């Protein structure tokens, strides 16, 4: 903070995930492989997979919204300003979007092919 450069949040987020970086990289690699499998198998059910991933994302976002204050050792009662709720909503949304995107390749493979 303090005249924080515009790119600073990127590094903060990077440091936040540094302890779990190997796991994150593993998930991304597995996702890439799953996408390759889906692409090579042909005719993946992209629309259906997108729909399911969105539902997964929404469910995760709702859970995140309810659990995030407790994750920070706070209670929902500690949220007192509009900004508290806006930030909680954004954090929950971000978590939901991230999980939805990461889940998409697996859902795509599990959805099978359109012709098969």
């Amino acid at each position, binding site marked *: *903070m*303090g*005249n*924080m*450069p515009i*790119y*600073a949040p*990127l*590094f*903060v*987020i*990077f*440091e*936040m995930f*540094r302890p779990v970086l190997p796991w994150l*990289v593993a998930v*991304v*690699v597995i996702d*890439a492989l799953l*996408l*390759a499998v*889906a*692409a*090579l198998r*042909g*005719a*993946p*059910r*992209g*629309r259906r997979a997108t729909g399911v991933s969105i539902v997964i994302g929404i469910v995760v976002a709702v859970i995140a919204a309810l659990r*995030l*204050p407790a*994750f*920070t*050792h*706070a*209670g929902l*009662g*500690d*949220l*007192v*300003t509009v*900004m*508290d709720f806006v*930030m*909680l909503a954004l954090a929950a949304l971000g978590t939901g979007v991230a999980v939805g995107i990461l889940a998409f390749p697996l859902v795509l493979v599990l959805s099978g092919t*359109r012709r098969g």
Partner: protein
Amino acid sequence: MADNGYETGRGLSRRRFLKLAGVAAMGAAGAPWLIDPARAQVRTSARVVIAGAGAGGLAMASRLSRLLDGARITIVDSREIHWYQPGFTLIAGGVWAPDRVTTPNSAFMPGGVEWIKADIAEFDPDGNRVVTDQGQTVRYDYLVVATGLELDYGDIEGMERSLIGQHGIGSVYAGPQHAAATWATMQAFVEGGGLGIFGRPPGGIKCAGAPLKMTLLTDYHLREAGRRGRAELIYAAHNDALFGVAPVNERVTEMFGSRGIEPQYSHVLKAVDPGRRTATFDTPDGDATLDYDFLHVVPPMSPPDPVTNSALAWQEGPFSDKGWLEVDQYTMRHRRYPNVFGIGDVNGIPKGKTAASVKAQAPVVAGNLVRVIEDREPTHRYNGYTSCPLVTAVGQAMLVEFDYEGNLIPSFPFLDPLEPSWVPWMMEELMLRPAYDAVLRGRI
């Protein structure tokens, strides 16, 4: 539909899709390294010595190792385990376990930097050299002093570090285990009730918000336990204010009032009798002795002796009493030794004894040092930026940020710096540590 009939993403061929996915994955992993604030390299054969491998020293080592090409950079510090000190308050408040704040210093040590695992026993700025406690002489062209400060528990009669956690004495400052012992003492007080005494000494101290946080956290835990009525809380301020920045002082005074915490002004802790559980204060009306049940001791603080005893210390003026490092408060360059810079708690400047200040000072010191190496005038300026999330309860905090003039300078205009809320708490709990690590790695 894509050209080959696959529905692999609207309008994308399979090959293009795979290529884009690969680039996106690589981009996501590598993005932070593409943006490097300290990348432009300056060729030099200069020998740079950094005294101290705490927040300031490591931030400087990281930045300078990327800014300077060919320089020989040496960092001197015997400490092998790094302490994330802002986390001490969370340990003493019962929120974190002590192991959350310790990391091997090697995890932050940049490649190519020589680490001498010893302490500096003597600074000899006229000879451009330092001497370690193991007798090694290290010469330098440029020196960065980043030794932090010392906790002078012994300046309080009857008090010593080993008493923390015993006889109702707590102190958040001394280290992770002492912070944990402080939490245990606070819990015993919450159980037993009585008189809790808090306060701070005069002079420069690191994180001047910490004594207030400890007071408010004790009040919080008493209320949570339903035992607030069985305890009395006193805050002994060393002068006529609870905090040195006017709007924050007003807000904290108001908060203390509403939470039944009694301020006692111009009270300086001078002696402790642990056996009898009494604390004696120096006041304008003479000594005042109080029986306590919980005493949170904040020791006087001073630069390490090798700094105080050297020519690098202020020789006159308000910072000479304890021998703080004599730097220009804006450029961070030594006022008499132009090849010496200072960063962090050791500096004799009006504000800036927080890790957040180190974050703001690091680019200034590194930038100015590089300019001096290039034979140019130092133009980067530090505005006194000091900050700490002032925890008011487990779950709420105020993100207080100010400059030399005592102006509030919020980084996030959407947050009211004087309104306790969850977002600053969430930052303290989740984001401050990653931000701190990024500072040590010279990234922000």
